[in-house]
C-alpha cells in the first residue's frame, strides 16, 4: 500500500480526464499514471536511496511524486529558493540519490559521485509504462521526506509514511468527488506540505490541477480566468497581494468560476479576510490549519462559519473569523499547560494533536509522539466551548514579561486594526526590570504618520497595560519567508542589537 493507489483509482475510472495543466503542457490521469510508472522503472534502475527534485511546479512534479510511490522510494522535493550552499547541504543529506533538476537550477548544484543528475523534462519523455512491474510497498515505509523551512535553525527532515498520507487523503477527500469542470489552481511551491497534499488530494478527488510556476497576482488572476478555476489554495500573503493588485489597478474582481478558496500556512490578518469576503461574495472561504508533521490539514474553519462570524454581533461568534476552525473528524486536538495537564475552553496552552495522519517524526530525531500518540505542535492557542481553535503564535515566540506569558498575536491583531497600520510584528526584547519586554515593528500605510504614543495608547485602550509595546519602530516592510511566515527571529535580532 503506497500513495500511488491514489492515482491508480482515478486512472482506472477516469483515465481520459485531464489530471494536470501547466501552460501548454497537460496530462490525463491515464497519461500521468503511465509517466509515473515509466519514472518508477527509471528510479529503480538508478538504485537510489531517494528521488529528489529541484524545480518549479510542472506536470513532471506529480509524475516524480507518484513515480517514487510506485517504486517504493522516498520522494524529496527541495526548496529552490534556498542559497546555493543550503541546497548543496540538503543534497548531501539525501545522497545516494537520483536528482531531477530544472534547467534553470542546474548551475546551483555541485556535482558529486553519489548523486545522479537528470533533467526534470526527462520525466515527461516516452510512451507506455516502461515495463513497470508493481512492487509490494510496506504501508509503514517513507513516502515523502520534507525539509522544514529552518526558520529557527538547521532544517529538519520530516518523515511522512505512506500510511500517514493515505490516512489523511482517504479520511478527508471523497474519491472522484470533483465535477469534470472543476479545476484547482496550485500556486504553492512543490517542496511545501501544501504542495504535496494539493497533488494527492486533487488527484484522488479527480479535480484538474492548474499549476503556476511561480506566484504573482497577475499570473494567478490570469490563470484563474483562462482555466475557469473553481478552487484554489493561497497563503495569506498571496491573498493580500491579489487584493492589493485589484485595489491599485481598479481591475474588476471578476472570477466567475471561482467557488472555493482555502487558505493557510500562516496567520491571516482580519482586515484581509474581511476584504476578500467582500470582494468575492460568491466564494466559499475555508481556513485550513496544519503542519508538515501532520500530513497537512488538522482543523478547518468552514465557509458557513466564516459567514456566520462575519454577520454576527455576538462577540463569541464574531471572533471566530480569526479562528482556524474545528478539528477534522480524522484527528483529536487537546490544549495542555506546561505541566502537561489538559486545559478547558478559553484556556491558553500548547496545542497537541493525535490521529492516523500525524507522523510527528524526523529522520535524525525519530518519533516525537508521546506514549499515547499525541504530537506537540509547539503552537500556542486555545479552543472555545464549541471546539473552535484559536492560534496564538509559536511557543518560542511567547514573551515572558515579569513572569506573565504574553503572546505576540493578540497585540499584532490590535495594532493591525489601527487605520495607519499596514502590518505589524511583535517580539520580545531584553529588559532589565521585566526580563523581557514587548517590542513592535510596524509598517505604516502610505501617507500615515502616527506618533509612537498614539499606537501605544491604541493598544492600552484595548488590552491590558502589560501588552503595550515598550518600543515601536517603523519599517518599510517586515521580513517574511516565501510561504508568508513572518521571520520574528530577524526582528528580535534587530531589537537585540539596538539597531532598530
Amino acid at each position, binding site marked *: 500500500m503506497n500513495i500511488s493507489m491514489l492515482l491508480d*483509482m482515478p486512472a482506472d475510472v477516469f483515465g481520459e480526464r485531464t489530471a494536470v495543466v501547466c501552460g501548454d503542457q497537460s496530462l490525463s490521469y491515464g497519461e500521468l499514471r503511465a509517466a509515473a510508472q515509466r519514472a518508477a522503472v527509471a528510479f529503480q534502475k538508478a538504485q537510489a536511496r531517494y528521488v529528489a527534485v529541484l524545480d518549479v511546479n510542472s506536470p513532471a512534479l506529480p509524475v516524480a511524486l507518484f513515480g517514487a510511490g510506485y517504486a517504493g522510494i522516498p520522494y524529496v522535493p527541495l526548496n529552490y529558493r534556498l542559497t546555493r550552499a543550503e541546497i548543496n547541504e540538503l543534497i548531501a543529506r539525501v545522497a545516494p540519490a537520483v536528482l531531477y533538476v530544472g534547467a534553470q537550477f542546474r548551475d546551483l548544484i555541485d556535482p558529486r559521485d553519489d548523486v545522479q543528475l537528470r533533467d526534470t523534462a526527462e520525466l515527461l519523455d516516452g510512451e507506455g509504462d516502461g515495463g513497470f512491474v508493481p512492487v509490494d510497498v510496506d504501508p509503514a515505509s517513507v513516502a515523502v521526506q520534507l525539509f522544514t523551512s529552518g526558520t529557527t535553525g538547521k532544517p529538519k527532515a520530516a518523515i511522512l509514511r505512506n500510511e500517514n498520507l493515505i490516512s489523511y487523503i*482517504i479520511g478527508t477527500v*471523497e*474519491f472522484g468527488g470533483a465535477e469534470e469542470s472543476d479545476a484547482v489552481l496550485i500556486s504553492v511551491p512543490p517542496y511545501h506540505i501544501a504542495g504535496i497534499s494539493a497533488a494527492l*488530494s486533487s488527484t484522488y478527488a479527480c479535480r484538474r490541477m492548474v499549476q503556476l510556476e511561480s506566484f504573482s497576482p497577475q499570473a494567478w488572476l490570469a490563470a484563474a480566468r483562462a482555466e475557469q478555476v473553481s478552487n484554489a489554495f493561497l497563503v495569506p500573503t498571496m491573498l493580500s497581494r491579489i487584493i492589493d493588485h485589484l485595489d491599485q489597478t481598479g481591475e474588476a474582481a471578476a472570477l466567475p468560476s471561482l467557488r*472555493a478558496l*482555502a487558505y*493557510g500556512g500562516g496567520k491571516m490578518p482580519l482586515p484581509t479576510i474581511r476584504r476578500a469576503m467582500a470582494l468575492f461574495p460568491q466564494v466559499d472561504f475555508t481556513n485550513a490549519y496544519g503542519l508538515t508533521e501532520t500530513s497537512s490539514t488538522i482543523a*478547518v474553519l468552514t465557509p458557513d462559519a466564516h459567514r456566520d462570524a462575519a454577520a454576527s454581533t455576538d462577540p463569541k461568534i464574531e471572533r471566530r473569523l480569526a479562528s482556524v476552525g474545528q478539528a477534522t473528524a480524522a484527528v483529536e486536538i487537546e490544549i495542555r499547560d506546561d505541566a502537561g495537564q489538559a486545559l478547558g475552553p478559553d484556556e491558553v496552552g500548547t496545542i497537541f494533536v493525535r490521529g492516523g495522519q500525524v507522523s510527528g517524526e524526523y529522520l535524525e530525531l525519530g518519533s516525537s509522539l508521546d506514549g499515547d500518540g499525541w504530537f506537540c505542535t509547539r503552537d500556542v492557542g486555545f479552543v472555545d466551548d464549541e471546539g473552535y481553535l484559536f492560534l496564538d503564535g509559536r511557543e518560542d515566540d511567547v514573551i515572558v514579561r515579569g513572569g506573565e506569558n504574553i503572546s505576540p498575536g493578540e497585540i499584532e491583531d490590535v495594532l493591525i486594526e489601527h487605520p495607519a497600520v499596514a502590518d505589524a510584528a511583535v517580539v520580545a526584547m531584553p529588559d532589565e526590570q521585566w526580563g523581557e519586554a514587548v517590542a513592535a515593528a510596524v509598517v505604516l500605510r502610505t501617507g500615515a504618520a502616527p506618533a509612537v504614543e498614539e499606537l501605544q495608547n491604541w493598544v492600552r485602550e484595548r488590552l491590558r497595560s502589560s501588552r503595550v509595546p515598550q518600543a515601536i519602530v517603523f519599517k518599510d516592510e517586515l521580513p517574511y519567508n516565501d510561504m508568508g511566515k513572518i521571520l520574528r527571529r530577524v526582528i528580535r535580532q534587530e531589537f537585540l542589537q539596538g539597531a532598530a
Partner: protein
Amino acid sequence: MSKLTLKAGTRVSSAVSDAQLMVIKVPAGEYELTCGGAPMLGPGESADGSASLADGDAGACLMGKRYVDPEETVEMLCTKAGAGTVVLNGTALDVKQAKQLPSSD
C-alpha cells in the same frame, strides 16, 4: 471456511464480481471474508469461475467507499467496484460515512 491473513495494504478481490478492496487497518490475524457469499481471494489468487453471487444478495462495493465493521477496528477501501455484500467473520461491513469537509488543499 478458509481464512485469509489480513494486514494493512493487503489487496483482496471478489470471486463472484469485479470488486476489489484494500485493507486500510485491521488487527493482525486471520479472518473469514466473503463477498456475495463466496470467500474472497487473497493476493495472487484468481477466481476459478465456480463461485457465483448468492441469491438475493443485492449488495455492492462502490469505488472509493470505505467499509468498516461495527467497532471500526477494521477498515477496507473499495479500489474497484463490483457486486456482492462484503462479510467479515459473519458480519456485513458498512459504508463509513465520511464527514464531508470543504476542500482544504
